[in-house]
């Protein structure tokens, strides 16, 4: 079937993936500049494991390697997971994360386009459930770490363990984690926020990285690779819920600004929740899906046991996507709304 307007699409899957990866680069460079070279190691390891697992599963499924490996989708998943994980974690953490992302969440469901869940977030969820200790040791900002690591040091830490340098010398808890534990202990919010890991909006350093993700996301918007619905609804849902909670009890719930500029909020809003396979696809559906994901993120952060809620919120909403899409089909021109598919009077 040929439909108007007869314009050939120039965006192949591999080109789209490459452009999304390009949009991540400002954030990655900022991360490397502010938190040391650990990010290069985790990006490299995740990419390598992603390609190995993808190739292995393609071979097992009897599919050709070249067309599927060159669509760059595994590589993008690897980057998104690497950016969601702490740097300087042991190498096997990245291996297990990629195993769940590529093998379980993607290939076992039938490969690209068939997966119900966002692969990178499945990898993250499997890791945070299984290895909570490793998942909360984040690299400290370069200025705050007692020990600045070189790229070789970073490789050494990842592969050989901590050795002579104690992990405390270069890691710290995240701001969300710190806020949660301190606020529950009853520490006044001024004294929590005056700790050195807090910056002007989110975590020191992390807020710059978040701004860079925001810039990359705006680039994606201007390239028309994503629409405004999901990022805006996600951030609005997160900020509104966090705002209401903050108004109710400012000693227990951090300000919406902190929520927007810490954890995986910006990365999630522009790069993770917008995954074309697992996100809702109708305009109204996108608003509901992402708004609910933002709301759930704030709720999990406020009341849940885990430090960040983006992954669980996105995964929970992934389950609802077929339902949301069915009930938000736009009215076909000339048809009565009551007759549209999936709607019952």
């Amino acid at each position: 079937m040929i439909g108007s307007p007869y314009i050939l699409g120039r965006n192949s899957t591999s080109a789209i993936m490459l452009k999304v990866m390009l949009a991540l680069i400002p954030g990655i460079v900022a991360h490397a500049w502010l938190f040391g070279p650990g990010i290069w190691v985790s990006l490299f390891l995740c990419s390598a494991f992603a390609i190995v697992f993808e190739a292995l599963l393609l071979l097992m499924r009897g599919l050709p390697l070249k067309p599927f490996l060159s669509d760059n989708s595994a590589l993008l998943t690897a980057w998104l997971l690497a950016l969601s994980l702490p740097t300087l974690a042991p190498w096997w953490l990245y291996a297990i994360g990629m195993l769940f992302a590529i093998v379980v969440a993607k290939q076992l469901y039938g490969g690209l386009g068939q997966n119900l869940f966002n692969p990178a977030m499945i990898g993250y969820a499997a890791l945070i459930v299984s290895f909570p200790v490793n998942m909360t040791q984040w690299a400290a900002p370069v200025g705050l770490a007692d020990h600045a690591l070189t790229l070789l040091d970073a490789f050494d830490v990842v592969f050989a363990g901590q050795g002579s340098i104690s992990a405390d010398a270069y890691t710290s808890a995240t701001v969300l984690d710190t806020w949660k534990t301190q606020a529950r202990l009853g520490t006044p919010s001024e004294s929590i926020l005056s700790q050195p890991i807090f910056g002007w909006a989110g975590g020191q350093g992390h807020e710059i990285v978040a701004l860079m993700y925001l810039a990359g996301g705006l680039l994606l918007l201007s390239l028309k690779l994503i629409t405004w619905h999901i990022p805006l609804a996600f951030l609005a849902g997160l900020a509104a819920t966090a705002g209401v909670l903050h108004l109710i009890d400012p000693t227990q719930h951090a300000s919406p600004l902190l929520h927007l500029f810490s954890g995986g909020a910006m990365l999630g809003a522009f790069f993770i929740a917008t995954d074309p396979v697992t996100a809702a696809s109708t305009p109204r559906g996108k608003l509901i899906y992402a708004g609910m994901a933002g709301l759930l993120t704030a709720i999990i952060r406020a009341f849940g046991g885990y430090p960040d809620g983006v992954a669980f919120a996105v995964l929970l909403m992934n389950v609802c996507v077929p339902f949301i899409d069915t009930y938000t089909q736009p009215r076909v021109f000339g048809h009565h709304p009551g007759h549209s598919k999936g709607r019952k009077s």
Partner: protein
Amino acid sequence: MSSPEAATLPNSAPLSTPGSAPELAAPRAGFLSQESRDIIVKGLWTQNPGVVQLLGLCPLLAISNNVVNALSLGLATTLVMAMSSGSVALVRNFIPHEIRIPAFVLIIAVLVTMVELAMHAWVPALYIVLGVFLPLITTNCIVLARVEAFASKRSTSHSVLDATMMGLGLTAVLVVLGGVREAIGKGTLFSGIDLALGPVAKGWVIPLAHDYNGFLLAILPPGAFIGLGLLIALRNRLMMRDNG
């Protein structure tokens, strides 16, 4: 796609039990009738409750976090199944058709209570570990399924054989799943065996790796779902090879 050992795999895969030996030695039949052999193969492999019928999954998923729990609950279920199928087959002609299901459930509940009390008396530690899943055998759909689909229509001896083989088939899946989850999640095998066999068995736990920090996901419920999914996939794969 086919390899030399492919032809032998399907027969040897379902944790061969002593009782299943005759089916391999088909030519010199005589010890067991063709019908009995069919029942054995169906229960253990072609109609396996765990990976084919997908019945009785509640205990399968909940209690298969280590080998000892899995084996204990599997055997308890098998015992209940054999007794209830045998009892129902005995009285099947006296039960009015319209109220057969409540009658079956009552019989099953009585037998479960007996097994529960017996385990409370002789293996109290294990009784506490299995907890609510022992009385829940009453509502396990595989027990009622065999009673309704088989024992209410067939002879007593065949009903007992069918229920035993279905129970052992489920137990085999439980044990494999429990073993995989325990090995990956805790790095041991047979932990807690002293609960079943007494303090003498305390040293029988097999550590598979030293300094293993554990992989919590395998012990938690997701591990059961993912593990069962992989087992079903493995079995389907073996069946596909078998059928070309």
